[in-house]
């Protein structure tokens, strides 16, 4: 009985999932310029993603072994992305790998060249990722923990619903609301008219700093420190406009790791330059 009911539930979910998948695909596929009414949120862009690996301190470069130096080759990839989130919280992310405008190339027989994507396109529907080749044939299907993304997606929809219920906040109202938070346990530091930050401590002694762009009215960065006070990761986003109607310009992500051979602390940074960005909410 127990097994049967699980099976039934599974079938039901499967049909629902399949239905959502068909709807999403038909709504979002190749629809860059005309946002579909099926997508509660639709974001499309082209991007050039440059990855750099270097010692955190430039003076440590001399300490790198030949192997570690060989593993610092910069790379650049191009991608064309479409994100669609429907009102039910289903999401589709289609990523097509494109040639960047300024590719980084190395001669034959170079040590440490990073793997290039072997797929032309991937489509992630609620965590199920299908990979396509140049001929648009399915070459691989992978399953990920879609639930971990779903929470975020639902959060996005809830926030958008709140935004739609209220009139647009003025700069003053936004700053006032931040001060309200500050008075209730989320200390806010105003650095200037544009940027505010907040430091949040965690139970294990680590802490995070979030960066808020008051003009754009959104979080544009987060820095995470370990319990010893060392910066372990951060991201910063450059935007134009006012949330939720913003244009992404540049996204900078960094994490640190120890070099394999020399034990030098290394910085892995990814710089995403957005082009043809469109966000429809």
């Amino acid at each position, binding site marked *: 009985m127990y097994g049967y009911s699980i099976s039934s539930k599974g079938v039901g979910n499967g049909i629902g999932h399949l239905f959502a998948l068909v709807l999403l695909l038909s709504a979002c596929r190749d629809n860059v310029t005309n946002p579909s009414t099926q997508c509660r*949120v639709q974001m499309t862009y082209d991007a050039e993603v440059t990855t750099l690996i270097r010692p955190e301190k430039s003076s440590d470069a001399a300490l790198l072994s030949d*192997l570690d*130096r*060989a*593993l610092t*080759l*910069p790379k650049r990839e191009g991608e064309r992305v479409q994100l669609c989130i429907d009102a039910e919280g289903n*999401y589709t*992310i289609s*990523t097509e790998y494109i040639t960047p405008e300024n590719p980084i190339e190395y*001669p*034959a027989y*170079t*040590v*440490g060249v990073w*793997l290039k994507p072997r797929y032309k396109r*991937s489509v992630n529907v609620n*965590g199920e*990722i299908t*990979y396509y080749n140049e001929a648009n044939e399915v070459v*691989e299907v992978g399953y990920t*923990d879609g639930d971990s*993304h779903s929470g975020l997606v639902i*959060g*996005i929809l809830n*926030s*958008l*619903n709140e935004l739609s*219920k*209220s009139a647009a906040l003025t700069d003053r109202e*936004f700053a006032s*609301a931040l001060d*309200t*938070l500050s008075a209730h*346990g*989320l200390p806010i530091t105003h650095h200037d008219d544009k*940027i505010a930050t907040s*430091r*949040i401590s965690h139970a294990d002694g680590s802490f995070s700093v979030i*960066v*808020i762009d008051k003009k754009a*009215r*959104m*979080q544009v*960065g987060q*820095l*995470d420190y370990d319990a010893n006070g060392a*910066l372990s990761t951060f991201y*910063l986003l450059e935007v134009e406009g006012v*949330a*939720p109607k*913003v244009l992404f*310009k*540049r996204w900078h992500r960094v*994490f640190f*790791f120890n070099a*394999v051979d020399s034990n030098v602390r290394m910085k892995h940074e990814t710089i995403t*330059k957005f082009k043809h960005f469109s*966000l429809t*909410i």
Partner: protein
Amino acid sequence: MRSITLLSAFTMAVIVLTGTLAQGQVSREVLWLEGPGLTSLSWIRAEEAAKRRGYKYFRFDSNPYDWNTTSQSIPEWAEYFNSKGRTDVLGIGHDAGGLILRKMNALSPNSGLSAMILDGVPNQGSRLMRSLVPNAPDLPSEAQVLINKLLDLKTQAQGCNGCRMLEAVQRWINSFIASERTRTYYSQMWPTSPLIQDLGLPTIPYAVIWGNEDESDGLILTRLVASWGSVYGQDTEYLDCYRREIAQRVRDASDHALVALMQGVAGLAGSLAKISTSKGDVGKIGEAISGAISTVANGIRARQTLDKELREAFECELIHQALNAQWNLAVSPYSLVQDTIFIPCIPCDNCADDPDPQVVGYCFSVCTAYGCQPLELLAYPVEYYTFEPHDGLLTRSEQLLQGAAKTYEARKVNHFQEQFWEYTPIGNAFQDLFNGGAGAAFVVPK
């Protein structure tokens, strides 16, 4: 009378044809010598391919060598084969098998070998063996030291299965020093070993086939280990598996990052909008404030989880890259190239020096927004290493031998694949040699 003439002509024709056929069917004695199983496991496939193509030869019985290649040193095996007293033998050697042929000739120019084909042979020794085989039995090899580091890193990178490639490589390289006998055997192939130093050039005709893996991604060890464990030298098993694993992790983490970014767009603005609209309603505003704080906290946690995913995916990739990079550096001499590329502007590094983390965040954000022109590309110096083409174990210059009657490059062929005629450059080279393309000394009749 006319019938007699026709009969005579027919008889003559039969005699001539029979003679020609008989001449064509004269077999050649061939000594097929493989290297040890770790680097030359499938040599029998080359013999089988030659037979399938109709080449006629007597096999010089190489037992018990075939089953116990490392039980004696290369000079000892050379003496053993020389003691058989054969003549006009064509020697064909792969890997260390070729060194035995050369040593046979060096020990006795009248060894009975009349020509030799050296296929993927460490003619100048093997630089790699210095990394795989330590100077003394109680010392770890350089390769083992690196593998231990990578295994530690792999343990930290949660869920980095890596298709068990690292373990396969470890098994393989451990076998080179499984006993003092094997350690001693493989140390004969050091470029500085007395064997290599004293060999000299052969006094009989010889031809060289050299393998060149020639893959642009440099993932030569990944392919090599797959070939080692495969029946026909196929090299894609680990590469396919690894690409799947890494591609999936990176894709998932990147998609996750995108969703998290969208949450940044809507989350704070939505929460603060709720606070603003709830003002004046004591019950609602408390809920709105706690909701906003919860949104911020959840966003931070989501971001931390995401960063962990990204870092672990990278570390998993790094292990694989490091293994292959180190392999290339160990196999081949390499040179440093200094170059310049152009990158988008990156935020000010010195922001991180401020003691106040909030000021660090502010500084970075100002730098991100104002410190760079978005379209501006900056010159960025890069350094990288280039290596000499190799077959996964031996470089071009290690395989080449001056004075060869003919030298064949086997492109896209790794050391293990050099044993298979199914890889076109190998099959073509052998057939050219057997058909007389490098002279009569190498001919094997059909």
